[in-house]
């Protein structure tokens, strides 16, 4: 660490940091602690009483095949969203990188989906695939394929994956594009002069140089798929059909606020806490390494 200059006094900094600490204490630490505490009880829906059950909620969850399935669903969903959003983004970034003029315009157009909230994206895609009025489902029907994501679990999963990944294509594109633009031209030119063809140059030189960005985007996209896609699931499938699109964060909501089983919901929050904590520690270990690039 560099030598730092410090100002004198301790009262001022405490005052300056107070708002942050206060807000975090009241709206972050206290609720997080409460979630851990509540996970040991089964409260009645009206909040009038609580039954202590120790680890009972956790036992119940881990023996519930639908909760275990939710882990699998979340994992599958995250992987699919990441792939579907990163590959087209990388492809478009590569193509855009080859252009001198116009890249900026394309980038401006491609940013739009980033600004669209996941829930709105859900509504847009639902509209296209709606079983009664959807344009795409109508054309599919004409081609002989009966689209019904209300009944078909795979179609439902496909639809939520595409809706969630759509907005992320922009985000990933921006990063890939910036990374490609900063690849030292000298290295690439040298390889070209040596006779290496485009794809060979790409695989052996550019892709390895992209790997920090790729890795970073992988982690960020997974976290996005875990949490920020709640809006998509809620607007399109509500976790159905038969819970085939119930990701972990959706289940916390469904069990707690719809099913009124607050004990189970709190226990699920705690488990998610552990999972996310692990992911973040992992991500930060990576970021630490990044600093030295």
């Amino acid at each position, binding site marked *: 660490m560099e030598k730092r200059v410090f100002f004198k006094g301790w009262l001022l900094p405490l005052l300056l940091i107070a708002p942050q600490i206060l807000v975090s204490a009241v709206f972050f630490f206290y609720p997080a602690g409460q979630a851990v505490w509540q996970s040991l009880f089964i409260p009645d829906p009206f909040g009038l009483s609580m039954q202590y059950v120790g680890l009972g909620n956790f036992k119940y969850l881990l023996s519930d095949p639908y909760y275990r399935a939710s882990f699998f669903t979340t994992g599958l969903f995250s992987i699919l969203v990441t792939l579907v959003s990163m590959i087209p983004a990388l492809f478009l970034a590569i193509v855009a990188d080859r252009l*001198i003029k116009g890249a900026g315009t394309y980038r401006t157009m491609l940013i739009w989906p980033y600004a669209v*909230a996941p829930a709105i994206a859900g509504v847009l895609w639902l509209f296209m695939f709606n079983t009664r009025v959807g344009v795409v489902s109508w054309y599919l029907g004409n081609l002989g394929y009966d689209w019904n994501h209300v009944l078909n679990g795979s179609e439902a999963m496909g639809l939520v994956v595409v809706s969630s990944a759509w907005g992320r294509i922009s985000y990933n594109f921006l990063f890939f594009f910036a990374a490609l633009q*900063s690849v030292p031209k000298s290295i690439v030119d040298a390889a070209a002069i040596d006779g290496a063809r485009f794809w060979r140059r790409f695989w052996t030189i550019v892709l390895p140089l992209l790997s920090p960005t790729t890795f970073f985007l992988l982690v960020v996209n997974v976290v996005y798929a875990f949490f920020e896609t709640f809006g998509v699931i809620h607007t399109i499938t509500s976790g159905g059909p038969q819970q085939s699109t119930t990701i972990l964060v959706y289940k916390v909501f469904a069990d707690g606020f719809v099913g009124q089983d607050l004990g189970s919901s709190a226990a699920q929050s705690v488990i998610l806490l552990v999972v996310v904590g692990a992911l973040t520690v992992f991500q930060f270990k990576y970021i630490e390494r990044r600093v030295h690039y």
Partner: protein
Amino acid sequence: MTLPTSKPQKNPAAGMVEKRGLGIWLSHAIMILGVLIVFFPIWLAFVASTVSQPEIVSPPMPLLPGDQFFINYKKALLAGINVPVGTMLTNSLIMAIGIAIGKIIISLLSAFAIVYFRFPGKKIFFWLIFITLMLPVEVRIVPTYEIIAGFGMLNSYGGLIFPLIASATATFLFRQFFMTVPDELAEAARVDGAKPLRFFWDILIPMSRTNIAALFVILFIYGWNQYLWPLLITTDPEMNTIVMGIKQMFPSGDDVADWPVIMATSILAMIPPVIVVISMQKLFIRGLVDSEK
């Protein structure tokens, strides 16, 4: 910690070397196709918001805009379905700006305190702040809801804003930035006998202008696109934000959805974030790529 962000080079040796004629046209074609595909859902929503309900309910709907633009948008803005969309837009605006400004202010103050002062408990506070990076609001929704209810802050702007500024991501980012500010500046201020707040106000803040602006864009989008939290704490439709209110515009019975109004609402919901992102594009991208959060 930053990715080197060079501007797209304009000399012919940029990119991946060869720039023969056919390659250029193909690249443009691919980009245009990519943009069209990515843009299609937005386009379709726009068209749907300009035609009448019967045209949508009997597929296939037209693919070019109709003439109901003013009627539909007026209906959406003034009447909506359960609450005027104009009201929802206002709520979203207040919430998004509140979150962005609130978070920026408290994090500037606390980052300044952490970087430029020594005070008791500093290390503890720093780690506490670090921990809040780990947990998105979805993991602590149930107890946070109860705290807000306990304060009587349901259906209030305070309830919408405060829990979402509790995590200290912005503090962390400003801390990273302040660490890169040359020591000499602070040293000079100290030698001049200037009070710390002078230094903060006259030197540090102006230096952070671009970071503040970039962060404003990111936080505005983050706040605007919130879904789960507003969904839980607003029981009065008058307090709906436009992104979460959209789901409630779908009928809960078996009535047909009023698609033109819903689509008009979707378009209105994405306009402010798109404007913010596009107009501050360069800044925003730099902030995004630099901050990697």
